[in-house]
């Protein structure tokens, strides 16, 4: 399984190195193993970078590009990362195989857990466990929100972020649906953008 290769990605230019690429089976195994042994997110991306990078299938530059693009893709970041990875290595077949390998095992486990929970949640012990797990999950969601927000509260971006946050909270209090709130935020972002304003990436640097 891991470590076996059966085809070679052709170089884009004559001077470029030749990269070996994994078979679809190997790609599926690596993605499934790396994504489903963590709780997703950046940890899974880092594991994929290490295991695929060590085999010479992706470079650090590829990884950085996939991380950036996956943050900008709607939905779950790690799934977008896996599709980008699969696309780069084997186009449509690679993208679909990676997506299935990253999402199906966890989804099956979650559906089975849901089916089980629906039968046992009347027991007091189970309810205590759920309540404690819920507090932990709340903290994890809080961490997710903080990780999203953190790059935007540095330097001149803090004011822009503050304005957007205040508008969003006001709209939430007015019970405006989330999709409309995101649309308002996008318009606000365009209005507040000035050609002279530094981009977040520049402030981070």
């Amino acid at each position, binding site marked *: 399984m891991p470590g076996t290769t059966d085809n070679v990605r052709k170089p884009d230019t004559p001077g470029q190195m030749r990269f070996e690429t994994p078979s679809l089976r190997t790609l599926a195994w690596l993605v499934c193993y790396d994504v489903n042994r963590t709780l997703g997110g950046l940890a899974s991306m880092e594991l994929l970078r290490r295991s695929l990078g060590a085999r010479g299938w992706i470079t650090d530059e590829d990884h950085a590009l996939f991380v950036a693009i996956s943050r900008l893709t709607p939905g779950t*970041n790690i799934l977008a990362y896996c599709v980008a990875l699969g696309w780069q290595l084997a186009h449509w077949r690679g993208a679909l195989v990676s997506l299935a390998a990253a999402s199906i095992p966890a989804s099956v486990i979650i559906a089975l857990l*849901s089916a089980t929970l629906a039968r046992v949640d009347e027991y007091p012990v189970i*309810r205590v466990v759920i309540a404690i797990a*819920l*507090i932990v999950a709340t903290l994890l969601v809080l961490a*997710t929100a903080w990780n999203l927000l953190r790059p935007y509260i540095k330097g001149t971006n803090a004011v822009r972020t503050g304005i*957007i*946050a205040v508008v969003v909270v006001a709209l939430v209090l007015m019970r405006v649906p989330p999709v409309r709130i995101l649309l308002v935020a996008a318009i606000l*972002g365009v209005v507040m953008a000035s050609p002279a304003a530094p981009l977040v990436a520049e402030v981070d640097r």
Partner: protein
Amino acid sequence: MSVVALYLLLLKATITSFAGMGSLPQVRQDFVVTHALISDEQLSQAVVIGRSAPGPVGAYVVAIGYFADGWPGAVAAWLAMVTPALLVIPLLTLLQRWLHLPRVKAAVDAVVIASAVLLLTSVIRMAMDAFDQLKRVFG
């Protein structure tokens, strides 16, 4: 509600979020408030199950789908979770061309900030739900 409608409802939530849990506010709006397909308690349980299982954080929507419509709902939810990820392919091509434009970058940044703030507002409700559950058991 049909499985297709369930898929579209979940897709609306997943395609307008920028992190696994980012879809939570829209899911609550559609599934708990507007259509009453699940209760607030089931929503919280889905989050717990999603965070307890290994793999993508956004997979909690599979539990939402299961609670709403059993196994067909879980399959519809899985499809709704994976569909937005395919957008990365055209994005990969397009963004290399357009992301350097300040207004495009600013719009994308603003959406990410707004989704994080929306997430924070959901956390308050989740915390209240957790303490309610504890109170019911011990009180």
